[in-house]
């Protein structure tokens, strides 16, 4: 009985603003710490790959970014579902604030993958199922951002964006299974949840540490963007006025 009440309270802008403001610094610090630890493990401690030598080290930014680009879409789609079904305004805002962060991770995935592909495959880009579906993911994120701004009425734009975010979720399993369903230039996954991974543990642990760092960072950045969006939406209200007064005097 307590959980729904807590959830309901968190949906109120001033409460969310304060809650996120308190949590955010910890998430940033934790994400930064884990990133340094994971990069040290990946760039210094892990041995060079027997086939790819040191070029494989691009994996430590490419794979966590790729996982986050898909997980971020999932989080955004859950918010879109909540926004459309229960008309929760905060969820609607959070769809729009998640999109640029997801787009950033997707761009990171595409760029680092392209840089990795050049020495290993001999090409920067190929219209391969995995690469193409990841590019579609990028355009879906951009589409959500663009659609929200395409309407005169802000709420109408947000609802259209939520709808696109929800429908676009079908692309996420396509990205994930692309290397299984089709013949792909892209290698298959080496980290497996349900069977033994085909990557040595000295190479694997930094990857997992960096994946956790990416999650924490995503949440922190999401809160930062949502806080700013709430300030903008509720500009004239007493609680925002009280905050800006506080900013000026202290």
């Amino acid at each position, binding site marked *: 009985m307590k959980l729904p009440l807590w959830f309901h309270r968190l949906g109120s802008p001033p409460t969310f603003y304060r809650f996120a403001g308190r949590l955010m610094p910890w998430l940033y610090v934790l994400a930064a710490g884990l990133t340094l630890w994971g990069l040290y493990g990946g760039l210094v401690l892990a041995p060079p790959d027997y086939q790819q030598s*040191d070029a494989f080290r*691009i994996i430590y930014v490419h794979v966590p970014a790729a996982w986050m680009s898909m997980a971020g879409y999932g989080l955004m789609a859950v918010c879109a579902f909540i926004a459309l079904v229960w008309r929760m305004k905060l969820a609607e805002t959070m769809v729009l604030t998640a999109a640029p962060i997801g787009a950033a991770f997707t761009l990171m995935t595409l760029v680092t993958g392209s840089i990795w592909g050049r020495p290993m495959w001999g090409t920067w880009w190929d219209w391969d199922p995995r690469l193409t579906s990841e590019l579609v993911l990028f355009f879906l994120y951009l589409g959500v951002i663009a659609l929200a701004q395409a309407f005169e009425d802000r709420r109408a734009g947000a609802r259209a964006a939520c709808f696109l975010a929800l429908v676009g979720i079908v692309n996420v399993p396509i990205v994930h299974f692309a290397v299984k369903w089709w013949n792909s230039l892209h290698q298959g996954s080496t980290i497996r949840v349900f069977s033994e991974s085909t990557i040595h543990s000295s190479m694997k642990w930094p990857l997992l540490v960096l994946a956790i760092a990416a999650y924490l960072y995503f949440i922190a950045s999401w809160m930062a963007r949502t806080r700013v969006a709430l300030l903008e939406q509720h500009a004239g209200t007493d609680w925002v006025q009280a905050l800006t007064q506080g900013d000026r005097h202290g």
Partner: protein
Amino acid sequence: MAEWFAMGGYGGYVWGAYLASFIVLAWDIVAPWRKRRELRRRRPARPSRRSEHTPT
């Protein structure tokens, strides 16, 4: 150290990938900060605005 930077001859690719990611993340960190500053500039505190519009 120099050997580590060379990354077995793939230094340009490896560091290029990390630099590109750093730039994207830096943008993501800075964007909400800049937006916040812009909001603060656009909307001065209520009392000062009220005094501006008070007929004298």
